[in-house]
């Protein structure tokens, strides 16, 4: 059934309050169950054998000795995973990534897996597997991968986006061009042109909980998968396709999640755990080590880019161009395309052009990481924006305000914007006390803005009203960042009851229809929409039951503040019936009272943020301390402001780590050198200041409450804001992320400081 999703500007009583989070007690007492916390009778331990080489042909793979070890119940290789996809396409790539077939494509690529009665036996089995490799030339740097003569990572990849289609395989899997106008004309009109190249290194989402699952496949083909994931319905779709299982027979239950940030939108070990269980006829539990998480899950891209912006002396940008080269790992994807689409999305440009090159390297398959691809492009673009502003002697905030996109602007990726929030975030930055605070020696301030699309997608929600008037709210979107609290607030708002009367649960895949993965900042936008309409359906039924209880026509019943009211002079003697009273009578008025809604939520509306950052750079050590940080972002409507602020702060914190320290370091042998949190340093509390936030609420016209997603945009500006701050503090333009102490010292040395 279609519903009107337009913004209605209603007044809220419950939405927007800072209620206690429903998962809080379980999480602080240790009662919450994460991916590794499930057990089953007779469960086995699943372990993986992984490639030590960046690129090699598997010439021999002998598991016979491992299979004969006492206590080993199953050994899996690619021979146990038939190709159901004709050797091509995204699902085939996923199959190959889960288990190498004839070649290993990166250090850490799975070659075999075992299931045994305990860890010791499983480890013994891994050692007994004999693999012979013919080592092949490899490439791990994006620029080297594009150079003539580079080793070809995948001989089945031909550059997409060229006409005519190339006939020779290439590491460039896709070329994507966006823009409008004529940049040559625009640059000719410019008084000032700045052109600069930048690099960003590969980072991992760094979620604290590693990937973990418990798979159990019965002899009749029925299966259960308990797993930490951002999208259990999507995992069901992927696993059933890869293994040839009936979707209805595979029940996937999402555990509590200890962080995902895009990295838990893809399957890695889960299909193999199911395959092991199917072969062993026993439950199999797999928990990745941190080393495996770094080497064999999905970090973000490393990049190399050239940014060119021209402007008139009055501050008008006349042309902007970005050439982006994104390292995708060993499988084709669209990360550079997304960088190209987002790079100039904050600005109102007459002439712009962005070209994205998606490039294969012998590194792990890249996965989404919070507003994927946008932070890197923003680093280059926002750095050059600052440089142009400096060159023409204009305040960088004023320069951005002058060129900011607005309603009616043609976006750099094509369409024309509706109402958007970049201008208000910049005005808020301009007027924020942070911008006026004094700075000391070796300190610098930077700011930057960022853009992300936001998405909606398939969602469905159930509301079941108990006979005591309490509510079971059943959701299908994994609670990554507060779905249970936010949906409970919305449900309570619609029904007119206290928040505490609603109990939200995330259902398994056999309980609800398909829900898309919690990604693309879609959870609150789309599940919120479904919750509103499910609650309104329940209200329709509540009114019908009240009418029966009173013996009056349903048309004479209205709902407000959690009660049914009989309207009209002829019913003035009827006292209101509360939701609890109607629920208590429900067995005699037609049975259980429920509401349900399924929706494809489109129209999520784009999102903008502007950040301010103060740093102090130690010229002796090159170390950077973040002194103060402020996030200003448009939320449309903040359903639970604590969670919204938490998303803003979390994105900024991850961005600070990315900007200053985090980096995949590969040796000349193509092996990852720092696959652990001691050598890959994410920020800890002592590295971070309190991150101040300012929530703007510019309603999304396509949502009844005006909601926009907030989960991702906050990671887009930090690399650039910190880059500008460090550059201002050090007096030298930084062009390589992370801006770690050695890079800052080198930049100072190169500048003769």
């Amino acid at each position, binding site marked *: 059934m279609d519903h009107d999703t337009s913004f209605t500007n209603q007044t809220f009583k419950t939405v927007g309050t800072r209620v206690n989070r429903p998962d809080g007690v379980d999480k602080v007492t240790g009662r919450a169950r994460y991916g590794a916390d499930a057990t089953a009778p007779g469960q086995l331990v699943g372990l993986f054998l992984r490639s030590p080489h960046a690129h090699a042909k598997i010439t021999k793979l002998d598991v016979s000795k491992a299979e004969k070890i006492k206590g080993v119940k199953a050994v899996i290789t690619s021979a146990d995973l038939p190709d159901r996809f004709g050797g091509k*396409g*995204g699902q085939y790539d996923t199959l190959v990534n889960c288990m190498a077939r004839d070649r290993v494509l990166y250090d850490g690529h799975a070659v075999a897996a075992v299931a045994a009665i305990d860890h010791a036996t499983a480890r013994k089995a891994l050692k007994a597997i004999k693999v012979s490799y013919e080592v092949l030339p490899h490439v791990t740097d994006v620029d080297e991968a594009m150079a003539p003569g580079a080793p070809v990572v995948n001989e089945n990849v031909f550059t*997409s*986006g*060229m*006409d005519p289609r190339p006939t020779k395989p290439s590491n460039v899997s*896709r*070329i*994507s*061009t*966006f823009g409008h106008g004529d940049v040559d004309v625009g640059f000719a009109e410019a008084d000032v042109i700045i052109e600069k190249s930048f690099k960003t290194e590969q980072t991992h*989402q760094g979620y604290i909980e590693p990937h973990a699952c418990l798979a159990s496949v019965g002899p009749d083909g029925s299966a259960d998968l308990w797993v930490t994931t951002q999208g259990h319905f999507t995992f069901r779709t992927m696993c059933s396709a890869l293994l040839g299982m009936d979707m209805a027979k595979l029940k996937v239950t999402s555990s509590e999640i200890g962080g995902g*940030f*895009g*990295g838990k*939108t893809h399957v890695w070990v889960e299909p193999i755990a199911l395959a092991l269980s199917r072969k062993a006829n026993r439950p199999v539990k797999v928990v990745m080590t941190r080393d495996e998480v770094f080497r064999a899950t999905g970090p973000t891209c490393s990049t190399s880019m050239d940014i060119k912006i021209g402007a008139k002396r009055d501050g008008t940008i006349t042309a902007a161009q970005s050439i982006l080269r994104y390292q995708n790992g060993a499988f084709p994807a*669209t990360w550079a*395309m*997304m960088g*190209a*689409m987002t790079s100039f999305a904050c600005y109102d440009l007459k002439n712009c052009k962005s070209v994205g090159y998606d490039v294969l390297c012998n590194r792990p398959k890249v*996965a*989404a*990481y*919070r*507003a*994927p691809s946008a932070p890197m492009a923003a680093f280059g673009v926002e750095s050059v924006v600052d440089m142009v502003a400096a060159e023409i002697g204009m305040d960088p905030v004023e320069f951005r305000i002058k060129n900011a996109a607005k309603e009616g602007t043609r*976006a750099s*990726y*094509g*369409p*024309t*914007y*509706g109402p958007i929030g970049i201008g208000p975030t910049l005005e808020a930055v301009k007027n924020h006390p942070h911008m006026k605070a004094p700075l000391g020696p070796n300190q610098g301030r930077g700011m930057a803005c960022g853009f*992300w*699309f*936001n*998405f*909606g*997608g*398939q969602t469905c929600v159930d509301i079941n009203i108990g006979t005591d008037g309490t509510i079971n709210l059943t959701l299908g979107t994994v609670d990554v960042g507060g779905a249970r609290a936010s949906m409970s607030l919305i449900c309570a708002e619609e029904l007119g009851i206290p928040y505490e009367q609603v109990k939200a649960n995330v259902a398994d895949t056999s309980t609800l229809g398909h829900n898309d993965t919690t*990604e*693309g*900042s*879609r959870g609150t936008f789309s599940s919120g929409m479904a919750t509103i309409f499910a609650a309104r359906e329940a209200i329709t039924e509540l009114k019908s039951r009240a009418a029966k209880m009173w013996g009056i026509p349903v048309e004479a019943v209205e709902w407000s503040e959690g009660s049914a009211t009989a309207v009209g002079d002829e019913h003035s003697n009827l006292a209101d019936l509360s939701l609890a009273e109607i629920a208590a009578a429900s067995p005699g008025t037609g049975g259980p009272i429920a509401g349900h809604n399924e929706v*494809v939520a*489109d*129209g*999520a*509306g784009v999102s903008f943020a502007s950040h301010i950052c103060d740093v102090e750079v130690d010229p002796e050590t090159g170390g950077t301390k973040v002194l103060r940080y402020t996030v200003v972002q448009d939320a449309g409507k903040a359903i639970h402001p604590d969670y919204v602020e938490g998303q803003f702060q979390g994105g900024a914190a991850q961005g600070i780590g990315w900007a200053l320290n985090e980096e995949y370091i590969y040796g000349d042998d193509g092996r990852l050198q720092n696959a652990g949190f001691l050598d890959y340093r994410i920020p800890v509390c002592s590295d971070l200041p309190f991150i101040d936030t300012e929530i703007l609420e510019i309603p999304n016209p*396509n949502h009844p409450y005006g909601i926009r997603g907030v989960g*991702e945009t906050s990671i887009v500006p930090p690399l650039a804001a910190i880059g500008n701050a460090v550059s201002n503090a050090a007096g030298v333009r930084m062009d390589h992320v992370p801006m770690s102490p050695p890079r800052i010292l080198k930049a100072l040395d190169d500048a003769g400081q």
Partner: protein
Amino acid sequence: MKVSLSGVLRAAAGGAEDIEIEATTIRDLMDRLLDRYPAMQEHVADGGIAVSIDGQIYRDTLGQPIPEGAEVFLLPRLAGG
């Protein structure tokens, strides 16, 4: 109706930036697009195509009406993290 193309979709339409197609819904548009440009099928299979109507991006609502005179862009379907 003018339909603007971006990214790799231009190559699938022989390099055209804009094409003329008559359609009243997204489903209608996609059917006619694939009829005329079979190379688009690869992009439909490889992650899909999204449609922007007057600045609003639709990924899944095939029944979405396209008003007369609307600004229509075809974009590669995107996802987030």
